[in-house]
Each structure stands twice: as C-alpha cells, then as structure tokens.
C-alpha cells in the first residue's frame, strides 16, 4: 500500500472516531460500522436528512421486529412449557 493511501486510511479512521464521539454525545446510538457506511453514503451525495429518516425507520423496524421476535419466543416458551406440563 502506498504511503498516501495509508495516510488517507488513517485520516478516515480519525474522522470516524470523531464522528462516533459526536454521535455518542448526541445519543445517536450508532456503531462505528453503521456510521462509516452512513458517512460514505453522504459523501456520495445522499441527502443527510433522508438518510436520517431511513436510519430511524430501519431502527424502529428492527426494534419492532425484535419485540415481535421476543413475543414469539415468549409465546413459544410458554407453549413449550405448557406442552411440557402436559
């Protein structure tokens, strides 16, 4: 790898560090990976506002799915318990 690229990589890392810290300050709840994806998207010209909406949506959706899954699991457990009692 040429030194230049290395430098760029280091800088990118630094940027992500900084942004991550800001996001944690703002309670954005994003891990570094997601953040780097987002940054690259924005760098490529995606509307930040739209992206924010999308992220929120996806997160919410994930939350819901999780809840759903938990419920299902709970139900499943109860079912299995009930079955076990029988």
């Amino acid at each position, binding site marked *: 790898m040429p030194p230049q690229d290395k430098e760029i990589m280091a800088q990118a890392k630094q940027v992500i560090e900084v942004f991550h810290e800001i996001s944690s300050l703002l*309670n954005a709840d994003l891990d570094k990976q997601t953040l780097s994806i987002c940054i690259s998207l924005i760098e490529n010209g995606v509307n930040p506002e739209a992206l924010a909406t999308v992220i929120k949506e996806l997160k919410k959706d994930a939350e819901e799915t999780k809840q759903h899954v938990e419920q299902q699991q709970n139900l499943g457990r109860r079912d299995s318990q009930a079955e076990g009692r029988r």
Partner: protein
Amino acid sequence: MSSSSQIKRIERIEQGIQGLVKKLFVKDPSESEEDEDDRKSNAVDFVKQILESRSRGPAVVADANQASDLIKKRLIQTNSSPEKALRFTNLYSRLLSIPAIKEKWAVLYFLYQIGDNHSQSPPILTSPFKSPVKAHRESKSMSYVPSKSPDYASKRPEKPFKEAFAPEGIQKLPAREGGQRDRKEEEQMFAKPPAVQREDVALKAALLAENYVEINPSEATLLRELPFTLQGLSSTNLKFSDDGRTLTLPPTLPVPIVSMFHTLAEPALLYKELSSFVQTAEGGLLGQSLRAAISNELRLYLGLVATLEGQIRRALASLNENEPRGGLGKTGVTLRRCVIWTRDSTAGLRLMSLISEESKSKKGGQLISLIHSFSVCHGDPMVGAFAERLLAHVTRPFYDMLRQWIYDGELSDPHFEFFVSEQDPNAVVEAPDGKSRGGASSVWEDKYKLNEDLVPSIITQDFAQKVFLIGKSLNFIRHGCGDSEWVEEYSKDASKELRYGDTATLEDWIDQAYKTTMTRLIHLMSEKFHLFEHLKALKNYILLGQGDFIALLMESLASNLDRPAGAQYRHTLTAQLEHAIRHSNAQYDSPEVLRRLDARMLQLSHGDIGWDCFTLEYKIDAPVDVVVTEWGNRQYLKVFNFLWRIKRVEFALATTWRKCMTGARGILTGGDKDVDQAWKSTRGVLAEMIHFIGQLQYYILFEVIESSWDELETAVHKEGCTLDDLIGAHTKYLNAITHKGLLGAKKSRNSENSDNTFMVQLGDILIHMLNYRDAVDGLYGWSVADFTVRQGMDFSVRAERREDEDGVLIPTPKTARRGPANLADSTPALDSEAIPDEFPVLLERLQLLGASFKKMVCVLLGDLAYQPDVDMRFLGVVMNFNDVYQPTRRKVRVPTTGRGEQGRSSAKP
C-alpha cells in the same frame, strides 16, 4: 463528471444501502427465509425510494458552521452542564482540521437529525413495510401522531419555538414575500398546496401543538369572527367602538395573540375608514374617480377576506375536538397565517388611507401629482406599483378633460380641476395691469388661464403650455374666427382616446395636434382675416409709408388745419381723405383696407389748432385685434402723431423756403445791406432745420420702421409660427419703433425726469421750428412792406399826382397772416418811420430762435451720442456728419475746433 464515476457512485450507494439494511436488520426466526428476503428487499426498496425522493438539493443551507451551531444548541439545552458542548466544540475543531472528508456539514446534520432519537418524540412515521400489504406509494403521505406527554411542553418550552425558526422552517415557506400578490395566486395556494408544504405545515402544527396553551376565547372562535372583524363589523368577542376608530379585544387574551390582533386590526380599521371615505360625495371628478379606484381596491380586499373566510370555514369544519388546539394546526389556517395573508393588503390599505387623507386638501392636478409622486419617488416597488395602478383609474377624468380640450377646444371642467381655467370676464376688467382690453383680445389673452399649481406632475410645464395653447387656439378658431366647422371636423378626425401610460405616444399626439391647430390658426389669420394686409396697411398709412398719399393729404388739409381745432369738421376731413386716396396710389389698395381708414379729430383742448388734433385712424376689428391690440393701436397712433407733426413742420418749412426762394428773385432784392445779411443768416438757419427734419424723417422711416418691418416679416413667415409668436413679433416690432423712433427712449442718466425724454426734446425743437418759421414769415412780410414802401416812394417821387392808385397796384402777400405786412398793407400811407422800428425786433427774434434751436440740437446730439442703441447713435452721426455742431453734454469729450457758424449754411444740402 464522467459517466463511469457516476456509475461508480451509484454502485457505492447501492452497496451502502445493502450494508445498512443488513446491519440494522433483525432476523425473525419465525419467518421463512423467503419472507425474510422479501422483507429485506422491501426495506432496501424503501430506503432507496426515500433517498431518491429527497436526493435533489439539500433542504438546508450547506453550512458546516450552522450544523455545528445546531448541535451545540441542542447539547446546551439537553444538558445542564456545558461540559458536553465544550467537548463537541473540541471535536468539531479537530474535524475541521481533517481534510479527508468533504461533506462535513452533511454528516453533522445527519447526526443532528438522528441524534435526538431518544430524547424527543418526533412525529411517528407509519412505516410502509410494517404491514406488507400497504403499497409503497403511500409511504409519502405520512401522518403524524403528536406526542401525548402532557408535561413535555412545560419541561422544554423553547424547543419547538426554536424549531419553528430553524432554517428549515424559514426555507420552506412559500416564497411570496415582496411584490404584489394577486388574489388568484392566493386561491391557487389554497387550492393545491404542494405536498412538501403540507408536510411542512403538518410538522409545524405538530410542533406548535406541543407548546399549545389554551386561550379564551379559543383560537377557533377568534378565527370564526376574524372575517367580520376584517370587514369592519363587530362580533361577539371583537367589538368596534362606536366611532369605529378602535377595536376592543377580549381582556383574557395572552399577549402574543393580542399583538397579532394589533396587526389584524389595522386592515380592519383602515377598511372601515376607507369605506366611509368612499361613500363621501365631496371632491370633483378626480376626487370621485379616486374614490372609485379606492373602492375597487376595497373590493379586491373584500375578495381576499371572502377567500379567507372560506378557508376558515373549511378549517373549522374539519376540526377534531380530540386534538390539541382542536387540530387547528393541521388545517393550515391559524391566526398567524391570517396575519401573513393580510399583510400585503394591509400595506395597500395603508397607502390608500394615506392618499385619502392627503387628498382632502388637494384637488385636480395636485391629486394626480400626489399619487404620481408615490408611484415615482417611493422606494418600495410594491407601493410604486400600487400607486401606478391607482393612477390609471384616477387619471381617467383628467384625460377625458384633456381630450376635450385639445381636440374640441372646449373646457368641460365643472369642478375646476383642470390646469386650464376659464376666467370670469368681470375679473379680467378689474385686473390690476391697467390696460383693459376688449373684444377678441380678451378671448385670446384672458379667457383662459393656465393654472400652474394644477399641472399634474405627469405632464411637464412645457407640455402644459402646449396643451394650453392648443385648446386656446381651438377655442379661438371656433369662437373668435367663427370656424367651428373646421374644429368639429378636426376633432372628429383626430380625436383619440388618451390614457395614462405611454407618455411618448401621448406627447406625439399632442405635438401633432399642436402643429395642426397652429397651422390652421395662422392660415385663418392670414387668409380669412388678412392679418398681413392689415399690418402692411398700418405701416403704409399710419406710419406714413405711403409718401404720395400723405403728401397729398397734407397739402389738401393744410389750409383747413391752420384753423382752430373747434372749426374742424369731420365731413371735410373725410372728404379730404377721400380725395387723397383717390388721387394717390392708395386707390389701388383693396377696399377692405381703405374702408378701415378714417380721419378724425382727437379730443380738443383750449387753444389747439387743427394740426394738433388731427389724426388718421385705421380700424381693426375682431379677431385681428388679437394681434393689433388696443395697446398696439395706441402705439400706432402715437407714432402717427409724432410723424404727422414732423411732416407738418417739414411741410411748413418747405412752404416758407419756397416763398423765400421765389422772393429772393423778386421782391427781396435790392434792399439795404443789413436786410440782405438778415435774410442770408435766416436762410442758413432754415436750411439747417430742413436738414434736421430730413434726417429725422429718413431715420424714422428707413432706419427704424423699415428695418423693424423686415424683422417682423421674417418672424411671421417662419416655419411653425404660432399666434403667440405672431403677437410677440408684432409687439416687438411696435416696441422697436416706439423705442428707436425716439418716442420711448429716455436719457439714461436722469430717466426719472420725464422732461428729458427725447419726445419732449424733439417736441420743443419742432415748436421752435414753427416759431422760427412764423418769424421768417414776419420778416418776409416786413420785406414785402419795405419793398412796397420803397416802390411807393419811387412812385411818389416819379408821379405824385397818381398816388391814390398806389395801394391797388401793390400785390399784397396773403401768406403773411399777421405781422407788419398786413399792418403796412392796411396803412399804406403810414410814414416810413414805423417800418424800420419793426426790423430790429424781428431780427432779434430770429437770432434768438436760431440760437436756441442750435443749442437744443447740440443737447440732443449730445444725448444721442451716449445712447446704447446703435441706430440712435447713428442718427446723431448723420445729423452732424460734418461736425458742425458741438454735442453738448455735461462733459464735452471732443472739443472740436468748431468752424464758424457762417460757413455752416453752405454745408447743408
């Protein structure tokens, strides 16, 4: 950018989206794999769609600083300690130092957007892929469920407020500020609000609702009553005071609402005031047209109010009791909005109210000037445009008047608003300028007056003058010249509708009208009323231009006029005039001219003889007397009288000279030496006088009258000459004659002393000449008597016995009216001692008169030499061409070595 990089970019975005979805996707174990994939691709599609739909243009200004500010603000708000904000500032400055990333602000903004995920409960978006049945398309029509937390607002009260003022909020406002807004536009705005706007309104409503404080009476009630208020009508909560000048607000309203109502009350009160102004019937036509224009504008305003009312009704109908503020925010109609919507109209109303106030003290053109000043000088383009619009309506009656004036020559101005006004004929007579004029001249000069105060600023003064002249000329053609047919035809042909707007065309038309009218007027004057012939006749007869006629007249009248003025009879005078005309070239003049020539006596005073009173008159009647005014007539008469006197003196001198010359060959010869010497010097003085008179006549007739006439001719025949020019040229002509002809010019030094005018000086000289002539006649008579006596003595010596026949044989001179001749004649037998007694007295008198004549001429020449006028100086030079006289002035500049007075007579022609 090249397409390959574009493709690469899209690819990267694709990858990013995929990664994102994968990252945030939560597996549902209960789902089948296909379902899962399906959901995943669904999510990807959704993400793409949203991103694409908003990819165009950032919603906020791309400014990293602003984004950082926003974040900072939030950090300060959410945390009691500034610690976090400080840290952020550090991070931010570090970030700025890293060049690797371009879209710093975007990322920051993204973080900012996503950041308050937990602290805030934003409007919840219904997710389209929550229920897969729903089509993606519907994803756009998001609905919001406002936060239900009751304590939220109290906890963070400023936040939504700040939110509303965020750049986003300001950015998304429809760009309607500035410029004139149509009602149509307004309707359009109501009819199809763009989706973005609706979202925005909804968002703001949600934010506002969070911070909503219940007011009493409720906003809905106030909104319902607002249209009435805007129309100036009282309603339950909003009452106008009895005099309609104040609006009473319910005391329960909070301050911000009150301030909004202050803004809303302004158009209402203005409307009330203006509508009452429109009802008034004062003011002239322009005032009424102003009222009409204002009421038109008020109608537009009412239209706006009606639209507003419709909107309010619709909004109130869709109210939902369960939502905060009754869900008013969502409908998009709030008090604040109403304030915004009525803002432009308020400005218009304000302007109209100002105009209506000002108009009370103004009328006619001033009113137009007032509005015009708004449209031209006001800095606000909106006010300018508004005033311009108003002006188009208001000026209509003005242009109607203008049209009537410049195409018909009629003034239809019942309220005295036009800048031309008809004068009261009685007022004219009492005008202080002293010279009252009668007949047509007052039609031209005094019938109409240009009132400069009332010339509106849309018309320049030059232009107003032109317009004034056009109308005046037309009026004059119609009434003064009796050519109304032409005027009617012209108005039919040329009449055009004049309107406020393109000034250039208007000017063109008026110029054209000006030219046509003036040409016609001049044509009428010269062709129909023979103006130029009259002028020529005046010059020929009154200014003695027609020499043969004048000579004949004088000859035939001479014996008549020697008698006292009381013995002059008009019929003899006219008979002689007729005779003079018949026997001179004047007979070839047109009868139109000759008919006007008349001879009459001026007012007699005691002791006058016919010469003093006789005058020739040239009668001028309407409409030519516009040019040759009464004043002009008087000037002509003055000149005539002066010239007539000169002529008379010349005539008398000539007669005496003739007598002397014939006498010199006969009866005057053979006297003694003294008598011969006396006759010689007398002849010398006589020749001097004749020379003087000749030069004076030459000067007046040729240097003054002819040259002025030449100027008049060129001025009159110039292209584009107007009647006013004509009058001006003629006045100038007369002035030149009276001034240069020594009649008006005063000696510059002591001009306050009226004794020193040239007129008086010349008059004295002329009287001296006449006296001298009388004295010469006396001398002649004496000589004749002397001759008779001598002859008688011869006879008595030769034939004493036939002495009784002596008296019969002697020819008695009849020209010697008085004096010793008659005396001697009547007493032929008188002894010769009496006759020599007479001679020294006569001689002394002649010498005295001759000397004083010379002195006076010298004084006159001295005065002439210092005249500013070249022609008058020239007269002095001509009279004294061989330096005979020594012009006496207080300081004699050139002490010429005067020749002997004896040699003078030989120098004279």
